């Protein structure tokens, strides 16, 4: 019993790391640029395909291809922000919603056309390996993915708290108008935020590749959990999204283990409702505000 419970928590925690990378991206964009990026899942998908093609064409390990997928998606993010998002930023939300939604549709259908609907898998030496400790097992590929995801989240935290640009981003997310009055260049901050969010999605894609299949719809599997985590962890709060993602992963795993394999999401959404009932603005909200 305890063994099963421990194993369920391990499984949930490991997949929660991937949810975290996706949700941190969504929450970063929301916090700084104040738009909801519906296409975040599609950028995870692009990250997966980048790693897949580097692995099959050049024999590059998916984890190593992180150094390609992250910069590529960072640049894509900066360009998207500069040429598309910047033009619809204004008092009206609708154009922004339609823009990111259209981007999602475009990328989905483009990848269906270019890559077909087939499932693509990469085999690495560690793909099917696992460490066995007592009665428990820890899949190596997922452990690596989790560790890198946590390291990247940590780096982001350090960046946001110690560099000028990071502080500017946090300032913009706390109060955009005041930040601008203080001389922060919004376009630069927005571009970096969007680029960073997409780079994180790309990282999630590369980290997933050793143990998950790439296909055009793959992003939508992950983005649902990411949105739940973003709401639960308070919109715009990076640390909240991280913690909420790990909780979601564990809740889903426990749900599958103890409620039923077709109802893992029941526990996830029950947790979300409970959180919203007692902390309406999410786990990451400051008290007394």
């Amino acid at each position, binding site marked *: 019993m305890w063994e099963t419970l421990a194993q369920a928590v391990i499984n*949930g925690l490991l*997949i929660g790391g991937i949810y975290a990378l996706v949700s941190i991206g969504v929450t970063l964009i929301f916090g700084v640029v104040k738009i909801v990026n519906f296409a975040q899942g599609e950028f995870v998908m692009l990250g997966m395909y980048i790693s897949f093609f580097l692995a099959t064409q050049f024999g590059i390990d998916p984890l190593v291809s992180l150094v390609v997928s992250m910069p590529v998606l960072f640049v894509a993010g900066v360009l998207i922000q500069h040429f598309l998002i910047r033009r619809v930023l204004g008092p009206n939300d609708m154009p922004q919603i339609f823009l990111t939604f259209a981007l999602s549709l475009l990328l989905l*259908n483009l990848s269906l056309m270019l890559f077909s*609907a087939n499932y693509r*898998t990469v085999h690495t030496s560690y*793909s099917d390996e696992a460490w066995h400790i007592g009665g428990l097992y820890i*899949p190596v590929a997922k452990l690596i993915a989790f560790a890198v995801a946590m390291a990247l989240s940590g780096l982001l935290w350090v960046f946001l708290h110690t560099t000028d640009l990071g502080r500017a981003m946090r300032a913009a997310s706390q109060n955009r108008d005041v930040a601008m009055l203080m001389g922060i260049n919004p376009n630069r901050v927005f571009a970096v935020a969007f680029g960073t969010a997409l780079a994180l999605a790309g990282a999630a894609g590369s980290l997933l590749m050793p143990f998950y299949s790439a296909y055009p719809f793959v992003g939508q599997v992950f983005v649902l959990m990411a949105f739940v985590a973003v709401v639960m962890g308070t919109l715009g709060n990076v640390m909240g999204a991280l913690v909420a993602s790990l909780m979601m992963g564990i809740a*889903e795993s426990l749900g599958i*283990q103890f409620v039923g394999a077709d109802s893992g999401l029941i526990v996830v959404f029950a947790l979300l409702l409970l959180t919203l009932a007692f902390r309406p603005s999410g786990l990451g909200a400051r008290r007394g505000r």
Partner: protein
Amino acid sequence: MPRSHRGNAMTGDRKPSAINNAVPTKASQKKLNRRRFLVKSGGVLAAGAFGAVPLRGWAADPINIGALYPSTGSMAQIGVGCVAAAKLAVDMVNEAGGIKSLGGAKLNLIVSDVQSDTTVTRTETDRLISGNKLSAIHGCYASALTLIASEVCERARVPIITGSSSDQLNKGRSYTFTPFARASQFAKAQLQMAKLVSEQAKVAVIFENTAFGTSTSNGLKELAPGEGVEIVMFEPYSAGFTDASPLINKVKASGANTLFSLSYLNDLILIVRTVKQVGLNIAINGGSGGFVMPDFYKNVGKAAEGLQGVAHWNHDVNDDAQKVNAEFKKRTGEFAFEYAGGLVAQTFMLADALERAASADPKKVREALSTLDVSSGYAAMAPGGKVKFGPDGKNVYGRPVGVQWQNADLASIFPKEDARAPLMKT
């Protein structure tokens, strides 16, 4: 986890007229029409004058066959293969001279994308029937979609022939024909195969909570006691999960020695890989669905060797099937999977019915299908080797074939009459 298919909204309903975006003025349109008329009538006159075109053959109207498959969305992978097989089948019938009783009329395949979505399936089936003069329809491979399509076909009185296995397709329907083994028969075959591995079969059943998974698993549960097989775990899951570990964790705790996984491809890949990671020593029977697809081996690799499954059709069934397989391989690079091969057989069943009906009228085609009785040729290439429909549209000779992955290919191993290779011990 629910997957939205909003991505496909753009790919549906593409009529050729929409491509013609250069709008001609009235005058030029007139000229265009006149020119087109001259070209057509002139061509016919000239051909008639020189006796180049045998008028009878030219005059036979093509027979429209509708094909409903998901070529986009989450089920697209198999759907696209089905469309390739449907085209191959029509080419084969046409190259062999078409329908002779209708003056050598050719089959004309009209493909419609049902986008892996039940709502779209309903509207597309409606649109296909109302927009074309169809003699028959085949589709949709996935039971969840076929159940909807067959309802629409029943109302419109157009016969539908399908490789889908849900037993519900044989209830209260008179225009639906199912030439292959039913889900309940698959279940029996799977249980008997479990005893090939161990006499004390303790089985864990995991199935996706769709029409296909539910109908198959219920069949397993009902039949297990009669076959002397103990079911120690019985668990539905929602298709499209991110992580199979919790589920496999549960299987491990159940103490089963055989795992029945009733899943489509992506989930199954995750399940098999996770079983290997956990180091669980368990015989896996992947059932049908994604498991008996060429892509399964490509994705799972050597770990797939020795895994067992069941299919309603396999390419080593007989010589005709081998021929179809060779041609399909030439066109697509893959071996003919069960739905692909089954579809070729189904098209030949339709051709046989059209031949006997000597009419393209869907009601007459239905009559002819209901009296179909074949035991040779492409129409009969199925496990059992014979096709004859009962009053419920079920092939009275239909039975599934047990298969095993051996050397990157699917070999028929069960039952004895259909076995083409011995069981590989793992």
